[in-house]
């Protein structure tokens, strides 16, 4: 049973609620649908709030511990409201060889924050992450669903300039989506 209090506390669109119902019937068990349900909420609201945890617990009939365990085990789930643009820079071996360290130092200087921090206006966060599966395309930054690849300090500056104006430039991985339309 869904608790009406938390159900209203969570500002989730009807489309997302429908998608969650569809996931519940598509997966062999409710609990198996936990990750895609978390994704559905996070993709719409940006993070998993305590109200969202309540909602997941109730709708999937799983324990709160189960939801918390999954939220904290996986690095991509967010339990705090994130910065507007979270820049995730690969610092693993291939990117390191190709200049990731210099790129990170440059971004730290430009943004006035260190790795792991968020700018005081909440606009940018800079995270160091492990291999993104773009090793021959490095150095690389992940921003949401997309990768900016083959980065140089100049290209990184361009990206920051655009994001400051709230223009999200075409990513190297955008290509595919454009072809389809």
């Amino acid at each position, binding site marked *: 049973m869904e608790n009406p209090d938390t159900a209203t506390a969570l500002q989730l669109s009807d489309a997302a609620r429908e998608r969650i119902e569809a996931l519940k019937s598509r997966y062999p068990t409710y609990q198996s649908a936990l*990750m895609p349900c978390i994704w559905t909420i996070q993709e719409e609201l940006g993070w998993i709030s305590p109200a969202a945890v309540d909602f997941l617990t109730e709708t999937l009939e799983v324990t709160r511990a189960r939801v918390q365990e999954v939220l904290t085990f996986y690095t991509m789930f967010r339990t705090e409201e994130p910065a507007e643009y979270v820049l995730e820079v690969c610092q693993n071996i291939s990117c390191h060889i190709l200049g990731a360290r210099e790129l990170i130092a440059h971004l730290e200087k430009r943004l006035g924050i260190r790795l792991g921090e968020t700018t005081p206006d909440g606009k940018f966060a800079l995270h160091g992450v492990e291999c993104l599966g773009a090793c021959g395309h490095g150095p690389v930054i992940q921003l949401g669903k997309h990768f900016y690849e083959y980065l140089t300090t100049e290209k990184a500056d361009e990206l920051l300039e655009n994001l400051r104006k709230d223009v999200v430039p075409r990513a190297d991985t955008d290509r595919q989506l454009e072809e389809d339309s």
Partner: protein
Amino acid sequence: MSRDGCNILSARFGRADGHLLKTYEAEGGYRALRMVLDGMKADEVIDVVKESGLRGRGGAGFPTGVKWGFVPKDAEQVYFFVNADESEPGTFKDRYLLDYDPHQTIEGTIISCFAVRANLAFIYIRGEFGWLVDRAQKAVDEAYAAGFLGENILGSGYSLDMIVHKGAGAYICGEETGLINSVTGTKGQPSIKPPFPAVAGYLGKPTIVNNVETVAAVPWIMNNGAAAYQATGTEKSAGTKLWSVSGPVRNQGVFEVPLGLPFAEFYRDELGGMIDGEELKACIVGGSSVPVLTADEIMGCTLDYESLQQAGTMLGSGGMILIPKSADMVELIKVLMHFYWDESCGQCTPCREGTGWLHRIVGRLLKGEGVPEDLDLLDKVCNGMAGLTICPLSDAAVMPMQSFLQRFRSEFEARIHETAAPGSPSRWARGE
């Protein structure tokens, strides 16, 4: 060795329309599926794949048909997982397969599922590949609409559902039992084997996990026959392999070549050698978890399972990292030990503590705070980690660590006598 026609897997790589069903079908796609469903028996498919010599491309190289044969014949419910978690540093080939040619993987998965009598398949894609999840979902939707998925496929009586499942950032979910546990909606921690997933996996039912590149080869094998596949490559390494190449070479990217190609030829003809001013020092040939080789060693290898094993390393995932003279091996191993420490799921003490130890000791060397005993200590910690844990992640940390130490010991020794200039290496290289 001829590389002509070596496009079993990569025929549509780099093409703007490669991912569309109409392109794939126009080029012979889904013909193998029609043939299989038009009268072949499941066991006959398994036999063809066995005879082809196809080995798993996810890292371990286990013969695919043999693995499929482990599924109990009387199983009522069988599950199939396509492993697209692709998180091994240096590896980015499965991304190309799903990006440029998702239908090849989907067709291969349907045939594989038919062979092991599975009625539900998951394609588990790492969460960082957000755009790729959308692309794969689109292709799966297309396959449903065309009647290649769902109830009673092409009127054969065989039914299969396919779910594209998005991971959320955890290397350990690439390990097959971690992957299965992840899809049950828990932490993606590996389970003790046996039982092997083929006997008791997802929800306790027989489950097959195969890498993307493995299933992607299946349509070609069905179309062209086991003998044709076996004829490519070497006796024990049949077929072709995708190599994801990174480092300061002229041509980085994903290359398909027959197994058994001499590295020196590959390096010269496909990679074009190093960029100007760089020289090859070392090569991690199969993803970050395999032992590193010196330039001289790798130059003497052919790219197949046997030769690489003989040279003291492994083919692994085919994530080939070319390391230049200018790179600092102590810094590189620090980056890798940070990775394994970060990704250890924490269940086994040797792995959880050992990866932390290795990471901290190497960090100490980089800070100029190393003591002479540290090199032996690194070795000793490694010996306490290898072969003692639930899954091979612990060994995966040990193999690069010990091989770096062994082959590039002088670079480690040099660190012991050094004092770091204040503020020289970046923060994370200092272990903060």
